[in-house]
C-alpha cells in the first residue's frame, strides 16, 4: 500500500511537472465549449466568413440544451477517446523502453502496484476532463438554450466515465503488454474501428462495451433508461476488471523487458 502511495505521488508529480494536469483539462474545456458556441453563433459566423450569395436562406433547426450535451458527448467519444489513448499508450512500455523503469524494477515493487498507480492517475484525469467538458458545454447550453435536466446529464457523465475507464484500462493493459507503437495502434484500431463496426452491424448483439456509449447517448437524448443499460454496464465492468488483472500480470511479467 505504501509503495502504491509513493508511486501515485510520482505519477501526480509527473502530471504537474509536464503541465498535463493543466493543459489536458483546458483542451477538454474548449472541446465542451465549442458545440454550444458554434451552434448559437452559426448565423453570425456564416455571415462573417461564409461568403454566401445574396438572398441565401438558411434555416437552422431549433435545438435544445440537451442537444448540446449530446453533441459534446459525441466529441468526447471520438476526440476524447483518441486523446486518452495517445497520452497513456506509452506510460508503461515507454518507461521500459527508455530505461527509467529499470531502477524501479530492481526494488521490491510489484508490477501490480506500478499498474494501479498509473491506472488511478489516468482515471482521475479521465474524470477531471469529462467534468470539464460537460460542465463547459452545460454552462453555455443553459445560457443559450435554457434549463438542463441536471440529473440526466450527471447520470450520462457517469455512464460515459465507465466507458472511458474501459478505454483507459485497455490501453494501459496493452502498454504493459507490448511496445508503445503497437499499444497505440492496437488501441486505436480496436476502439475506434470497434465503435464503427458496432454502430454498423451492432444490431446483432445488445451487450458490448461499445454499446455503452450508444446507450448513454440514447438515454441523455430521451431521458428513458434503455433496458439493456444495466447489463451493458455489467459487461463493461467485467471487461475493465479482466483488462486490469491482465495488465497487472503483464506489467509484472514484462519487467524483464526493461532496457538495462
Amino acid at each position, binding site marked *: 500500500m*505504501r*509503495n502504491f502511495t*509513493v*508511486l501515485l*505521488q*510520482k505519477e501526480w*508529480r*509527473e502530471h504537474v*511537472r*509536464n503541465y498535463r494536469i493543466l493543459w489536458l483539462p483546458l483542451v477538454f474545456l474548449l472541446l465542451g465549449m465549442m458545440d454550444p458556441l458554434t451552434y448559437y453563433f452559426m448565423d453570425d459566423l456564416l455571415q462573417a466568413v461564409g461568403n454566401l450569395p445574396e438572398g441565401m436562406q438558411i434555416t437552422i433547426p431549433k435545438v435544445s440544451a440537451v442537444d448540446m450535451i449530446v453533441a459534446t458527448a459525441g466529441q468526447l467519444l471520438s476526440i476524447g477517446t483518441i486523446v486518452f489513448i495517445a497520452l497513456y499508450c506509452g506510460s508503461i512500455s515507454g518507461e521500459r523502453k*527508455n*530505461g*527509467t523503469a*529499470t*531502477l*524501479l*524494477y*530492481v*526494488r*521490491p*515493487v510489484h508490477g501490480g502496484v506500478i499498474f494501479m498507480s498509473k491506472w488511478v492517475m489516468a482515471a482521475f484525469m479521465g474524470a477531471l476532463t469529462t467534468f470539464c467538458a460537460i460542465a463547459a458545454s452545460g454552462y453555455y447550453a443553459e445560457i443559450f438554450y435554457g434549463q438542463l435536466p441536471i440529473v440526466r446529464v450527471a447520470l450520462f457523465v457517469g455512464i460515459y466515465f465507465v466507458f472511458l475507464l474501459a478505454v483507459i484500462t485497455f490501453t494501459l493493459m496493452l502498454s504493459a503488454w507490448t511496445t508503445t507503437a503497437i499499444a497505440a495502434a492496437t488501441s486505436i484500431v480496436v476502439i475506434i474501428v470497434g465503435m464503427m463496426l458496432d454502430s454498423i452491424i451492432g444490431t446483432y448483439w445488445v451487450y458490448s462495451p461499445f454499446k455503452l456509449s450508444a446507450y448513454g447517448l440514447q438515454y441523455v437524448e430521451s431521458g428513458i433508461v434503455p433496458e439493456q443499460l444495466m447489463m451493458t454496464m455489467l459487461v463493461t465492468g467485467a471487461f475493465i476488471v479482466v483488462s486490469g488483472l491482465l495488465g497487472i500480470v503483464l506489467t509484472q511479467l514484462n*519487467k*524483464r523487458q*526493461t*532496457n*538495462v
Partner: protein
Amino acid sequence: MLQVEQLTKRFGKKAVVSDVTFELVPNTITALIGPNGAGKTTTLSMLAGLLTPTSGIIRLDNPRPVQQQVGFLPQYPKFFEWMTAFEYVNMMGKLSGLSTVDALQRANDVLRFVGLYDERTQRISGFSGGMKQRLGIAQAILHRPKLLLLDEPVSALDPIGRSDMMKLLRELAETTTILYSTHILHDAESMTEYVLFMKDGCLVEQGHIDEVQQKYDAPHIAITFVQETDALQFASQSELHVSVSERVVTVEVHNNKPTMQHIMSRLAASPFQVEQVAYAKMTLEQMFMKVVGEDA
C-alpha cells in the same frame, strides 16, 4: 557473501552466459572484465534480479529477498528527469523499504556522500553525465546493500569524474562488497583486488589479481625509448621475443635469458636514446590480452 554456481542464460538457442561459477569475498572489490558482448551486463542483470537465469544458482548469505540486499547501477542509468535529485533518491528509498524518516535521512546522507547535496533541489534533467553517474551511485547505496553491482561505472566519465568515482568506490568497499564490470583496465588495476575474466559468456580466469598475475606473468624487461621510431627499429632488429606498444618495447624473459646485462650492452652499442630500462610487472591489460587471446 555471494555464491554463483553454473549460472547460464540463453536467449533462444544462443547462450549469452554459460556455466559461470564464482564466489565473492566480503568487503572486496571484484572487477568483471571482458570485451564487449562477453555477457557482463547479462550476468549483472541476473544477479540484480532483473533477469531470470535459464539455469544455475545464485546464493546470498542472507535469506532476505535479493532486491533488499543488492544495489544496482546500470551502465546508462536513466532517471525520471522531471524530478529533483532529492525527490528521486527519497522516492527510491521508500520503494526500497526504508521507513519515511529513514528514507529522508538516508536521502540527505547519500547525496552528501556522492557530492550532490548542494544540487539536491535541482531537476535531474539539468545534470551532467558525471552528476548522473554519481546520482546512480546514490540510488544504489541508499538501502545500505551488502552487495553493490555496477555496470561500467567509470567508462562514460572523463578523467576527473573517473578518479572521483574510484575514490567513492574505495570508500564504499570498506563496508560493502563490490562487483563491477569494466573494459578500462588501467583504472581497474588501481583499485581491484579480485578479477573475473569473461569471454563469450564463459569465465576464463578468476582469482586474486596477484595470483592471476603470477600465473600469467612471464617476467619481462620494459625498455622505454625517447623516439617511437627507435623503439620500432630496435624491435625489428632484435631476435628476442619482443612486443612494441608506442615507445615501449617489452622483452620476454625465459630461464633468465636474456639478462639485464645483455640488454644493457645491446642498448649501449646502439645509437638509440633510451629513457628507461626496468624489470616490469605485467599490467592488467597485458594479462587480459593474454587470457582472452589465448584460444582466439
